[in-house]
């Protein structure tokens, strides 16, 4: 990879800064660890099983499709493992094994590899896998139903379902601090807000994701939720509630800034993030799904190629 012979006359670049796909994947996984460990701590071995199974299946599918298409084996770059990890973070701890297997198959094979592998996918693979599962087996993602047997010392009510069915009267027991510390039911790695924020900060500081997308996503959620709340505070929850529940934080820091399905220029990034945020709250408040992050980001992935047409003028171009 790196040419270590010292005395060779060549063109620039002369030095490689060491960044690679595997570095990106492993650092993203490290950033996701606090939230995942919290989930495993809360839900016990069952959650650990789902996480391990998801990562293993993702790598397995990647290896299989590499062999079938006779391309170089790409499981070493860690992207498949990352897809598996992020996918497990969205799932409830009680997911059966076949759900994990199907989801990771869709994510890795249909989401990524049939579009030519890493870097070619127009949609976020994790979200495609998850969206198809939601459309096909909606019952397994009704968090009130599937997590009913857990007693973790706080109300096992999925906050977004509560606000959807009961209005703000149903969510009075949730405090913002409690939501941040993971005292809510939900996916394995998506409830511990503080951990996700720390992970996101780490990724932004290291330059692996762009702050524009995450920030504009959160701003979109905040402003839209605030407008709904001001309009009718009995029916629609306040902005902080929407920021720290469901998949908002994992979406802002891990799903929306996915490399190949998000824009590259400044203004398109703002449009992309804010659009996803606005759509998220629209789906939560007036749509038919309880949480809107998954479909909102997928919809913005679709608009991404058009957004990217807004680009700076080429140097020296007249008119």
């Amino acid at each position, binding site marked *: 990879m790196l040419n270590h012979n010292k005395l060779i006359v060549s063109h620039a670049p002369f030095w490689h800064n060491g960044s690679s796909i595997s570095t990106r994947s492993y650092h993203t996984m490290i950033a996701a660890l606090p939230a995942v460990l919290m989930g495993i701590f809360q839900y016990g071995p069952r959650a650990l099983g789902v996480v391990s199974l998801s990562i293993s299946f993702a790598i397995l599918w990647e290896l299989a499709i590499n062999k079938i298409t006779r391309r170089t084996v790409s499981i070493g770059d860690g992207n498949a493992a990352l897809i598996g990890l992020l996918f497990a973070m969205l799932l409830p701890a009680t997911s059966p094994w076949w759900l994990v297997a199907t989801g990771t198959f869709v994510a890795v094979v249909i989401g990524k590899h*049939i*579009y030519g592998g890493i870097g070619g996918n*127009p949609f976020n693979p994790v979200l495609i896998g998850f969206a198809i599962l939601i459309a096909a087996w909606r019952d397994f993602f009704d968090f009130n139903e599937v997590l009913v047997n857990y007693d973790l010392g706080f109300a096992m009510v999925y906050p977004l379902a509560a606000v959807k069915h009961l209005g703000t009267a149903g969510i009075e027991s949730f405090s913002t601090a409690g939501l941040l510390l993971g005292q809510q039911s939900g996916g394995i790695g998506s409830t511990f807000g503080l951990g996700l924020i720390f992970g996101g900060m780490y990724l932004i500081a290291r330059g692996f994701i762009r702050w524009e997308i995450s920030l504009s996503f959160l701003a979109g959620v905040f402003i839209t939720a605030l407008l709904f709340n001001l309009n009718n505070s009995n029916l629609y929850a306040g902005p902080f509630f929407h920021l720290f529940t469901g998949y908002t934080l994992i979406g802002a820091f891990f799903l929306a800034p996915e490399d190949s399905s998000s824009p590259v220029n400044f203004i398109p990034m703002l449009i992309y993030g804010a659009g996803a945020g606005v759509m998220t709250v629209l*789906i939560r408040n007036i*749509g038919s*799904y309880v949480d809107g992050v998954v479909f909102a980001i997928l*919809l913005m992935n679709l*608009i991404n190629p058009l957004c990217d047409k807004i680009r700076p003028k080429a140097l020296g171009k007249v008119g």
Partner: protein
Amino acid sequence: MGYMEILIGGIFVNNILLAQFLGNCPFLGTSKKMETAVGMAMAVVFVLVLAGVITWVLYAFFLVPYKLVYMRTIAFILVIASLVQFVEMFLKKSIPALYAGLGIFLPLITTNCAVFGACILNIDKELNFMKTLVQSTAYAVGFGLALILFAGVRERIILARVPKPLQDTSIGLVTAGILSLTFYAFKGMI
């Protein structure tokens, strides 16, 4: 139902391509390049809005009074075909490049299920004249929107290393399915 609801419903929630699956032939055929997609979208907007209005007038003032409702399909196709012929002559004279780009898909608007389906849906829902106009516009804009979004995605896919058996139309069909899945976002909004 207010006009705003009809408009949003027609464009997003009941998108004629991605929620009702009508008119998939030009959707796959003309979406490889952005220019042809935009041209096709414009042609469909023109034909669909005019066809929706004219078929409503024809139905209300001719077919129903003379008890010829059973002739609906043939009469509507006739209206759509003559409109398409009009568009075709116009494009051939004034924008020959677009005419060549659209190729066979221009005359095929005649049998475009989206146009005919929208006309039939308007009649079956028993909408009045103004609502028919708004509904037809909404369906047409929804068609154009879906086509242009799809063309944007497809222009990127052409640059990617898609495995050989999946190239071109196959990957287009898979992507169309995913597009339809993303439009689940609008489910239940009205």
